[in-house]
Structures are given as structure tokens and as C-alpha cells.
């Protein structure tokens, strides 16, 4: 269901820009299926991005975030060859972590 994240991190020397495309259904818990039953909520609740082990972004996600969310942010520092790792946890306890090398 939840596939790998696509992550791109590029450094310009002083700051690093990270782009993330997550693959997640992000069900709000408010939608009804064809038979009228509520589709249970299933969405990412926490997201953490680390640079060489140091947390550079921690976010709380809720039902208002779209399906397959796209996230882009910058942090100071970072050099080519460094590692940026992104992980999320969803409300069913599923986890996913993906890592990318800064270009």
C-alpha cells in the first residue's frame, strides 16, 4: 500500500533543499464507501527528516494532508555526499524510512 518515498536533496553549498514525494492513501476517516460505511482513517501522523543523524524537520501530519503528499523544505548546511533520511509513522503504526545522498 505505502510504497517507497521519492526523495531528492540538493545542496548549493550553504543550504540544502529537500523534496519528498510520499506514497500514502491518507484516508481522512470522513469518507464513506459505496455501501455508506465510513472508510477508517489511515494517515501519516508524524514525519521526521534527519541530516547525518541530526533532526532537521519534525512534523505532525493529520487528515487534512492530501493523498501521496509532497513536501519540500530547506535546511542550513549540508554538503554533497551527506545523508538525508526521512521517516514517517501513520496512525496504524506503519512505518517507513527512506534515505538519500545529497547531490
Amino acid at each position, binding site marked *: 500500500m505505502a510504497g517507497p518515498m521519492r526523495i*531528492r536533496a540538493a545542496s548549493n553549498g550553504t543550504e540544502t533543499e529537500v*523534496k519528498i514525494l510520499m506514497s500514502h492513501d491518507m484516508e481522512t476517516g470522513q469518507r464513506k464507501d459505496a455501501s455508506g460505511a465510513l472508510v477508517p482513517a489511515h494517515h501519516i501522523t508524524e514525519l521526521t527528516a534527519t541530516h547525518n543523524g541530526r533532526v532537521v524537520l519534525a512534523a505532525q501530519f493529520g487528515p487534512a494532508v492530501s493523498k501521496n503528499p509532497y513536501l519540500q523544505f530547506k535546511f542550513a548546511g549540508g554538503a554533497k555526499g551527506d545523508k538525508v533520511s526521512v521517516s514517517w509513522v501513520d496512525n496504524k503504526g506503519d512505518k517507513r524510512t527512506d534515505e538519500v545522498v545529497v547531490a
Partner: protein
Amino acid sequence: MSRFSELLLAGCLIAAAAGASADSSFPGVGRPATPSEVKAWDIDVRPDFKGLPPGKGSVDQGIELWEAKCTACHGSFGESNEVFTPLVGGTTKEDIETGRVGAYIRQDAPQRSTLMKVPTLSTLWDYINRAMPWNAPKSLSPDEVYAVLAYLLHLGEIVPADFTLSDKNIAEVQKRMPNRNGMTTKHGMWDIKGKPDVKNVACMKNCKTQITMGSSLPDYARDAHGNLADQNRVIGAVRGQQTSEGAGGGAAAPAPHPAMDLMKKSGCSGCHGIASKILGPSFRDIAKRYKDDKGAESQLIGRVKAGGSGTWGDAAMPPQAHVSDADTAALIKWILSGSPEN
């Protein structure tokens, strides 16, 4: 021998002298295209890959090109909805197996992406080759087109990350296109005997003789969207109604500002609107931002000449070297004065 046939004979001799290969059925009209002219023009790639130039490109090479030339409009992952509809998304592993996009059958896709729609890989190759990037079509070499396409296919999980696409294996990849079996030719758009999109039959009996108005806008709501007469295009038979009193009024419109012509001729209107954001910011937004900035004029002239990005978002402005210095200066002056339309 009559005078006429003498003339004809003379004509034939001239034609023969001009070029032995000239088609004599239309003497004096044009000349056959040379093989190199035909080659430059004949760039189409067919679904059976006839016309595909040899070459290859890897996903990794594609990433570099994509970041440089495609990201501004399509997003890093082909996901962007900002300028065009997304290229990637809505397809699953199952679709790649079956060749039918399940989202169409279930009708649960909020939006159609390019990879959901396109059945033939040749179409993607051909389109990227002839029309992309937006601001410099046909500037990619065949190898670059292979590389960009390989990356795009990788984003759709059609090929793995270490894949190299080439003219040798493109037919194999075609067999993994998610919508390859989703195209039908059994309709009137393709086959003259197919079912047409619309069908109209002349009324033969009990026909209506008068038009009855089904609904109309109440008076208080007529100007809810401004004066429609000012908004409709001025060609064709249909005109928007005057929906706000006093506006426009039917008096002849004043002559457009000379800079309007210059702006359209220089290609600015492809990306900039006067009052609305298109790809780039609107002219009035620019004027607003630099209202109190004395150095703005020379700074913006430099920006137009050399191109730039980042000031108004991600979309990059390409360098506009084809516009003369005087024209650029006149346009910037006009923009900073609030872009009056007349």
C-alpha cells in the same frame, strides 16, 4: 509546328536545364524537397517505432536533465499540478501487468496523469523530442530524450532505477505501459463506421416551432462576474452581454497602448499576464513589488536579458536575448508604470 507547342518545347528545355530531377507535371512550381530537407522535417516516431533514431539514455542521466529542464513545470517527480496536469501517478503494478489502468475501470481517479493515459511509448518519445522543453523545443539530442524518458518511466515504476533505455529495448518497455491495452479504435473519431461522439437526427414530426427560455440570470446577479461584454473575445458571431451599467458602454474602445503589441510580439504573454499570474508573475504584481525601488528599472532589464529564477517561485525565466535593448527598456518602463492597456 504551332506557336503554342514551340513555347511548350522551350519551357521543357528550361526545366530540364534547371534540374534533371524536377517533377515536370507542374512546370515552374516549386521544386522537390531535397533528402536533407525531408530528413529535417520527418521526425515522427510511429507506434511500431519506425522513425526512432538510435541512441540510449539511463535513468541517472535523466535525473540530471530533469532537474535542469523539466522540474520548473513538472516538479521533481513529475507530480506537479501547478502548471500542467501531473505526468506520473494513478498507475499500479497491476496496471503494468494487465495493460489496463484500473483507475479508469473503477472510476476512482481524481485526475488523469500522462502515464495513465498514454498507450504508446513512441508518443512520449516523439512528444518530448519535438516539443520539450517548453521554452526550447527540439533542443534535446536523441540520447537526452532517451534519458529523460527513462527517468519518467522510472517515476511511473515501469522501469527500475538502473535502467538504460535505448532503441534496442524500447519495444520491450512498450509491453509494460500501463494503458497499452486501453486504447480503442472502434469509434467515429477513428473509423468512419464507428459510433460517433454525438448524433443528431433531424426532427420530422411534432417538432417545436418556438424557442422557450428555460432559465435566465436574475438582474441582481447579472454583473456577478463583471461586464461580460468586456471579457468575451471579439472574433466570431457571439458577444458577451453588457452586464454592468456604464461600463464599456458601446463607445469605441481606445487604441491599445503601443507596448501591448511589443509585449505580445516579444513573446512575453506566453508566460506573463497583465493582471494575472500564468507561469511567471503578472506585470502589475511586478510593478507593485518594485513601486518604491529606484534601481528596479535597470535591475529588471538585466533580469530579462539574462533570465532568472527564485524571485517569484520556482518557474525559471529563460534569457530573452532576442529582444533588443531599446525594446526591453520600453517594456520594463511600461510594466513599472502599471502596464496601462491603452
